């Protein structure tokens, strides 16, 4: 029998026992739906975690320090010799070299200092953090109120929501207003040792105690600068390790660097360094994607600096999700297995009911193969329809769960999330799986029908 005739006959048979076949198909659909819903939750949660975590700026960053003995989670300790090497200085030259590495998007120091601001005549103490331009792409600024910095050197500020609440009972109204940042600027002293030495002598300090041929030191000058408030954000993105959420007033990194605010490590730098050049305690290197973190990290270690990244943490996260998906898949498959028993039952019942018809078909010249293919086709069609319907149903269940979760999150003033995700490959493979399972369920009934003795079948009344 030709495929078209076979399909027509199969479709006809399916229509004839419409209720029973619909219920069987529905059974498959529910099985596929539970499989799809489970997997879509797994994939959705994984995507959510990946998005939130990779966008958090933690996983595409390498933290560089002048010390060579840092290591990541679970990574073997570096060799003894590496630890004993003298600390290399992180200066602008090193920063330039790192920035020139392949796949490096940006290199910036951590600028974070406690200070005071003036807003509407009142002083408030706060912590200021410099934010690199690449932070714009990160999740923390999704759904922020107002805008991100208009340019890397704009005198603009973004407030962290808690700080905004301190400034005003209506945080929204702050956008567009100005605030005055008061800070301590570090000014390098001109290299004039003689008056200093004279002073020292006067004060009774032996000039030999002064470190010669080194930076003449710096003075600290109070400054003020006006910033325009352009946005309010829930959380600060992680610009450096351990910095997450600590900055309350965010300003562009470039502006923060120009301010030359005196920071804690300046004092140590003063003692250690031979020139008045800018040095860094640590630098953050933003890499194009988490997969390139390893190579960039290796390159920086070659240069003699210590590095740290959370790469290994993401690996174990992926493992957890793979196991999670596997379990969800197993539970979903169980539902489909139960549904496939439904197919076996329906088709076996159909054989009993259609004994006579099978006998007639055989008497008219149907080969065993034709009968087998007819039953197979019926199982396959039920699998296909059940699969399509099931994927739709599973997607709806996933969407309903997402909707419900988002209603819950909304009540708790949290941003909405995409809980479930049905990518096209999942839909396609669920339908294919449904057909395969249905055909497998059809093997026994089909071969039983094919083996039916036509003389017996025709005698059967």
């Amino acid at each position, binding site marked *: *029998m030709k495929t078209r005739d076979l399909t027509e006959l199969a479709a*006809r048979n399916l229509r004839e026992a419409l209720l029973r076949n619909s219920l069987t198909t529905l059974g498959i659909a529910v099985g596929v739906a539970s499989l799809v819903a489970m997997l879509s939750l797994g994939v959705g949660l994984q995507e959510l975690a990946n998005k939130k975590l990779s966008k958090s700026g933690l996983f595409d960053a390498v933290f560089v320090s002048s010390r060579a003995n840092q290591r990541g989670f679970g990574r073997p300790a570096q060799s003894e010799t590496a630890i004993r090497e003298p600390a290399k200085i992180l200066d602008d030259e090193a920063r330039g070299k790192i920035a020139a590495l392949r796949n490096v998007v940006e290199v910036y120091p951590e600028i974070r200092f406690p200070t005071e601001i003036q807003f509407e005549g009142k002083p408030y103490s706060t912590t200021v953090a410099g934010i690199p331009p690449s932070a714009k792409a990160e999740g923390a600024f999704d759904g922020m109120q107002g805008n991100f910095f208009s340019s890397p050197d704009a005198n603009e500020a973004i407030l962290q929501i808690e700080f905004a609440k301190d400034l005003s009972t209506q945080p929204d109204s702050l956008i567009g207003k100005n605030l005055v940042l008061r800070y301590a600027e570090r000014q390098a002293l001109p290299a004039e040792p003689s008056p200093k030495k004279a002073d020292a002598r006067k004060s009774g300090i032996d000039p030999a105690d002064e470190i010669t041929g080194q930076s003449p030191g710096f003075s600290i000058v109070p400054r003020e600068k006006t910033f325009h408030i352009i946005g309010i954000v829930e959380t600060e993105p992680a610009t450096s390790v351990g910095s997450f959420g600590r900055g309350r007033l965010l300003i562009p990194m470039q502006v923060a660097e120009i301010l030359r605010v005196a920071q804690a490590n300046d004092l140590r730098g003063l003692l250690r360094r031979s020139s008045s050049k800018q040095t860094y305690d640590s630098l953050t290197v933003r890499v194009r994607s988490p997969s390139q973190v390893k190579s960039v990290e290796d390159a920086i270690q070659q240069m003699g600096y210590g590095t740290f990244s959370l790469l290994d943490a993401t690996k174990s996260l992926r493992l957890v999700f793979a196991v999670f998906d596997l379990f969800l898949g197993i539970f979903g498959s169980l539902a489909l297995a139960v549904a496939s028993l439904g197919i076996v039952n329906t088709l076996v019942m159909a054989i009993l009911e259609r004994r006579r018809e099978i006998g007639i078909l055989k*008497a*008219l*010249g149907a*080969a065993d193969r*034709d009968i087998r293919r007819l039953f197979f086709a019926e199982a396959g069609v039920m699998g296909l329809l059940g699969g399509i319907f099931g994927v739709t149903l599973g997607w709806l269940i996933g969407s309903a769960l997402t909707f419900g979760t988002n209603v819950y999150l909304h009540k708790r003033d949290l941003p909405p999330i995409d809980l479930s995700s049905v990518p096209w490959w999942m839909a396609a493979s669920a339908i294919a799986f449904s057909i395969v399972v249905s055909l497998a369920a059809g093997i026994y009934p089909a071969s039983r029908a094919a083996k039916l003795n036509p*003389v017996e079948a025709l005698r059967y009344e």
Partner: protein
Amino acid sequence: MGDALVHAVDDVTVAVRSKEFIALLGSSGSGKSTLLNLMAGLDRPTSGAIFARGRNLAEMSSEDLAQHRNHTIGMVFQAFNLLPRMTLEENVELPLRLAEVNRDERPNRVREAVERVRLSARLTHRPSELSGGEQQRAALARALVNRPTILLADEPTGNLDSATGDAILHLLQEINESLGMTIVMVTHDRDRAARYAHRIVTMGDGKLLSDGNNR
């Protein structure tokens, strides 16, 4: 499906010549239907041979037997055995589907077969909407549609009143004469066998009792 071997047909040799109209006569359980099923290739003999057009059915694969039933044999049953949910037209088309006859050709073949049994007005009716005689004529059209060389009829008049039964037998006779189709008809009605068949083969207890020309 009994496990014990029952000799429904035992030591029977019948030669059917081309274009012959043979009546297989006998009481119930005489083995006449079994013999017919063996000829049709619906059943296989435990021993012995059945030759149809030079080929031994006993040695054919089940695939070949299906081909034999489809192309060489047309069958008519006492219970008509039409598929109840199909129209007359679809029932008659069924052997064409199984024989993989071209779709364009099918309507003509169906019409031709239905015209021969004079049922053209009933093409779109379902079996339940047809009388017993009409149903048997539809079954006959279905048996003829693939232009077989042998028509096997198992008690074709068993479920019909005498007038309708006569009309069916008349039709068989006509087919035998005009198409030159070989007909083997199982019946227990000696009078009718005598009236229509060329030759009467009588069976009892699975054995051949008599075989003789009717005319």
